[in-house]
């Protein structure tokens, strides 16, 4: 049973042209195509990892899924029902059932709130329970994320360490009893030695409370550790999807290969192949219709520039790569 389906999901941003261009020369608008025709589904109690470089559209996708940003086109279906245009109580219910964990624990907690108030803010804003019930649940969840309530409820964010702050962030998402969690690089600002603890906490809570997750990270080694399946994105397009181990250990798409090849290995004796790509990443401003990786791809030809392979959601567990040249690559 698929809990969430993204169906040809796209999001474009308009670039405000200069005053002269707009009023006098009447230039047409330019668009940043942040997400282009994305097809993905997420199963019940599954963790989908999304990886890619900055500007690949992973954050835009998350914001759309969380209901804070409307797609330009395409559909988001939650439990088979479209969430586009939801209003009032339904939207409230949806937003409650999808919760986010943010990247930067130094930035994502309001510096003027105490830990208990940060956690209680969601239930209070949505008026979920009466005040006593909220207090009770806040204490319960703080204990569950490893912050004994008697010690932590009164603390301000600046009185907490990075790991403790991230735990408060997790608590404030989970207190809403969500069915789905979107975690946007929750470890990247934390020290190496405590990352594993937070990762374990997320995994434990997921087993215990049975929610689905989208886990965004640029770090493939962590995704390999936490995600069931991994989606690789580049400049708004999906490049490859499949079971985490398959994608990382046996990448098919030239972009994924480069990405995996570029990850340094913590062993001074090991040598890795140097990724064979050229040029720099650009911004997807008015891009041509084809594969956006084509300009940097060693295998690209005219067919790559002309059109783009879309992923299908028919078999969620299939390992698919959005590439015309898979045969050549496999041979070479």
């Amino acid at each position, binding site marked *: 049973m698929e809990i969430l389906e993204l169906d040809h999901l796209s999001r474009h941003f308009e670039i405000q042209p200069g005053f002269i261009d707009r009023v006098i020369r009447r230039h047409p608008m330019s668009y940043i195509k942040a997400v282009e025709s994305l097809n993905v589904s997420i199963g019940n109690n599954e963790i989908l990892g999304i990886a890619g470089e900055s500007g690949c559209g992973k954050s835009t996708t998350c914001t759309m899924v969380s209901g804070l940003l409307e797609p330009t086109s395409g559909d988001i279906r939650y439990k088979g029902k479209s969430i586009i245009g939801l209003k009032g109580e339904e939207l409230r219910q949806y937003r409650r059932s999808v919760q986010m964990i943010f990247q930067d624990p130094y930035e994502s907690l309001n510096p003027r709130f105490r830990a208990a108030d940060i956690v209680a803010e969601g239930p209070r804003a949505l008026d979920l329970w009466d005040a006593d019930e909220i207090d009770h649940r806040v204490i319960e969840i703080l204990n569950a994320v490893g912050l004994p309530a008697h010690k932590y409820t009164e603390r301000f964010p600046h009185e907490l360490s990075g790991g403790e702050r991230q735990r408060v962030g997790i608590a404030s998402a989970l207190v809403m009893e969500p069915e789905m969690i979107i975690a946007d690089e929750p470890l990247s600002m934390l*020290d190496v030695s405590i990352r594993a*603890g937070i990762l374990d906490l997320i995994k434990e809570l997921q087993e215990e409370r049975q929610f689905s997750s989208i886990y965004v990270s640029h770090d493939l*080694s962590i995704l390999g550790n936490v995600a069931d399946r991994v989606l690789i994105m580049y400049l708004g397009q999906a490049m490859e999807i499949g079971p985490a181990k398959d994608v990382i250990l046996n990448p098919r798409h030239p972009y994924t290969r*480069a990405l995996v090849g*570029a990850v340094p*290995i*913590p062993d001074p004796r090991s040598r890795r192949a140097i990724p064979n790509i050229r040029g720099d990443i650009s911004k997807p401003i008015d891009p041509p219709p084809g594969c956006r990786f084509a300009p940097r791809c060693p295998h690209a030809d005219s067919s790559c520039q002309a059109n783009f392979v879309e992923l299908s959601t028919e078999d969620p567990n299939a390992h698919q790569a959005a590439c015309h040249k898979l045969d050549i690559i496999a041979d070479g």
Partner: protein
Amino acid sequence: MTKTATPEPLLSIRNLGVVYSTSQGPVHAVSNISFDVHANEVFGIAGESGCGKSTLIRSLLRLLPDNGRMDAGLCQYKGQDLTAMSDEAFRKNILWQEISLVPQSAMASFNPVHRVGDQIIESILAHRDISRAEARERSAGLFDVVGLQSDLMNSYPHEFSGGMRQRAMIAMSLSLDPGLIIMDEPTTGLDVLVQERILRRIREIRAEIKSSIILITHDIAVIAEMSDRIAIMYGGEVMEQATAVDMFENPHHPYTLGLKNAFPSIRDIGSELISIPGSPPTLVGPLTSCPFAPRCPFNLDTCHQANPESINIGTSHQVRCIRTADAKQFRKLAREKSTWRS
């Protein structure tokens, strides 16, 4: 990449300490640091936030804020005693000429209101008596070395992408052929493919020039790939120092073991990651115990009573731990998750 140590080190530091006076009392951000950097080597310093990395850099470059005070048993560069040098002489003869910096945040380290090229030219003209045109030519050459087109010199920093800014920073650090380049987290915050290009560029530059590099980062994989020798810092001290291969194959300090377990490798995904419980010390007041003792699963009572001295084990391998004899057993125990749950 491994080299035998040359007899005369390029930079030699002994017992370096930095104390900040704060409202909470003296903070010993860095204490008892000793290391040598040899000619033409990459010396990696790894550590997490608050371990004293930035203070170490600032003290080497004399950029400590007013409330910071540095004392060092010895601070020698090419045989010259740096501590005896006046600020003015240090600024004129050492800064950038001999020791240059690639700062942590290339984004914020370029002055936003001046052109990138001008900022590089400025660093040349401050120390060399050449014409502006010559300095410009030289900068264009440096842009070429780091793989940037020389017409980008006329751009402002905000027009550069993160990777380009970092490359321009590296170009600037090379502008006077310094003997030593300090690179502070040169790839942190960059995307993997951009990081890959920067690292490749640094390797290429190393082959061409004779500068030594101090590479400071929290990313153990980067340090493993790039460095000849590595120092692991914690609580303002160097916990363990060894050649890169030695550090990874024969680690001794419990903190090194913990750090290795906590760091994922793409080569073996699915293996369990283990975190070190607790958080780093605040360093207020002098150290009277091993700074890692409160988080160490192998601590003894003596660990809390005195700060251990650095012990030599092997020719160029030092460990600041009293239980080096049990290291072999620790290495096995450290792989168990239960060991780290106190």
